[in-house]
């Protein structure tokens, strides 16, 4: 009997014949934590009595969520994490280097790897073909200490996408549409496997955007087969030797098959306060937006900034709408400067903040005021997410974000491109 991607990777890493429903103990190739879940992780690690991780080189600490620190308490947490990194030999990515998931994709994730992170969007690395999943602080502390952890092998939903994206439609619209179909808990505990011509043609940035949001349907992982696009991506990042092709078997067992005609999709928006509350952007015409956020681990990559810049170049944002841009990493930021995108965005009136999470989780750099609405390219619109339970968050693509910044109200990007 054939295997899904999840079964293949977990078989390799556990040395067992891993099948959906089995519990296995698997080796982990990378364990990481960030500055809001990290202090508890480090304390759990110490509380258990461990001094050093099983493999410090495979452990990484990111200071990205509250970076630079907005408060003295968080600054103290940062000090603690830097200390912990030095004592344990874990790698450290400090203020300004970027969002953990972007850096993991740029620098460390390989097809077939098992990656656990103390952050729910660890699933992002599934775009590269890594079995990557988020866990809590205790689980991550123990995975660091032992170099392995236990998994229940997930059942898989095969998401089969055919057809080309229409003008103005992006990977973000595909995943918003899918979450609208599946529901916010429609894929709880499952692996989502993205196959078909639409996904095999998709570039790595699009794959990362889609894998990033697998968790918003409750999934444990969102996996792309490893193919030529993966190989070229790894090569460009200087780790071509880490490429291995991994495809699901033709006779793999799927719990559910979802077929999507990608060519029929249009720009989509998730309305407050759940990610599955999805409608076409055009239906929300006239909805006033006070803040637009372009960035995050979902859509803060170079192609995203390029797309927004191409719409905003030579124009001005609406006078009553502020545009906040947070590049996903320092490498993205630098490339966007060199390509002129940052100048285009600045000229349009954007405020550019540190590469990192920025205002995404409501800590700083763009918390919402009472009754304000934000259209964000991030992945969550939960009540209170951007620092205020009396704020409203809409999720959309970088194209929709740029069009909305221009008009000051939710705008289908096809109206402006």
């Amino acid at each position, binding site marked *: 009997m054939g295997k899904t991607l999840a079964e293949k990777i977990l078989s390799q890493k556990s040395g067992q014949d891993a099948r959906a429903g089995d519990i296995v103990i698997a080796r982990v190739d990378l364990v990481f934590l960030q500055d809001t879940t990290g202090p508890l992780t480090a304390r759990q690690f110490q509380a258990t009595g461990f001094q050093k991780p099983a493999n410090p080189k495979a452990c990484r600490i990111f200071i990205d969520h509250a970076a630079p620190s907005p408060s003295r308490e968080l600054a103290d947490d940062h000090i603690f994490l830097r200390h912990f990194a030095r004592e344990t030999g874990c790698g450290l990515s400090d203020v300004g280097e970027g969002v953990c998931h972007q850096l993991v994709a740029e620098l460390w994730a390989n097809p077939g790897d098992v990656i656990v992170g103390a*952050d729910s969007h660890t699933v992002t690395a599934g775009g590269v073909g890594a079995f990557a999943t988020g*866990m809590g602080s205790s*689980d991550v502390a123990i995975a660091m200490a032992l170099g392995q952890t236990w998994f229940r092998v997930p059942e898989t939903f095969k998401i089969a996408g055919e057809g080309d994206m229409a003008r103005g439609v992006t990977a973000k619209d595909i995943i918003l549409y899918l979450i609208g179909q599946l529901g916010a808990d429609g894929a709880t505990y499952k692996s989502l496997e993205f196959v078909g011509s639409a996904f095999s043609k998709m570039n790595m940035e699009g794959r990362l955007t889609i894998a990033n949001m697998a968790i918003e349907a409750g999934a*444990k992982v969102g996996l792309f087969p490893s193919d030529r696009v993966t190989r070229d991506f790894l090569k460009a990042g200087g780790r071509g030797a880490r490429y291995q092709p991994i495809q699901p078997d033709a006779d793999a067992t799927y719990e559910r098959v979802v077929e999507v005609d990608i060519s029929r999709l249009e720009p989509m928006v998730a309305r407050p306060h*759940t990610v599955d509350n999805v409608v076409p952007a055009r239906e929300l015409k006239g909805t006033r937006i006070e803040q637009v956020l372009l960035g995050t681990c979902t859509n803060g990559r170079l192609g995203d900034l390029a797309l927004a810049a191409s719409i905003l170049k030579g124009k001005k944002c609406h006078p009553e709408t502020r545009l906040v841009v947070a590049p996903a990493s320092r490498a993205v930021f630098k490339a966007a400067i060199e390509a002129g995108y940052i100048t285009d965005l600045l000229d349009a009136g954007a405020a550019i903040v540190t590469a990192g999470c920025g205002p995404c989780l*409501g800590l700083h750099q763009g918390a919402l005021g009472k009754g304000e609405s934000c259209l964000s390219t991030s992945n969550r619109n939960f009540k209170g997410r951007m620092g205020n339970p009396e704020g409203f968050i809409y999720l959309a693509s970088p194209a929709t974000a740029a069009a909305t910044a221009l008009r000051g109200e939710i705008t289908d990007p096809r109206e402006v491109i």
Partner: protein
Amino acid sequence: MIKGKAHKFGDDISTDLIVPGRLAHLRSNLPELAKHVLEDADPTFAGRVKPGDFVVAGKNFGMGSSREHAPLVIKMAGVSAVLARSVARIFFRNAINQGLPILICDTSRISNGDELEVDMARGMVNDITSGVELSFGKIPPVMMAILGSGGLIPYIQKYKGFQLPD
């Protein structure tokens, strides 16, 4: 046998509603953070909850971020178990790792304020107020062992690694 009062919540209670990101500066000050438990879902909850009480929710409880502070502050508030129609995956694992039982059952049959009695061994919830009896889903053996040790840290201290039942 655990006894307490039911505090009802709706569907899709996110970890942002349980312990909002804007309070991240309190995460290294847990007693202070715990005062805000479930604040954005029900600001009066922290003041009303008594040791032994139950959080009773709809579907997809604990969705969203991986912050283990969410089950941690619920436990610190004295809650003895969370009953829900379904729970998000990471929250489920985190709660067990913190030694907080998660009982999956048809919570629509429990009303706010009902007196409940939970029999972990039999897998039954008895709603004393209404007389309704509900069975709850089995927790996988590896998680039962972690729960039985009082959480993941004491479990690892005891066994020095993961033990899979045959």
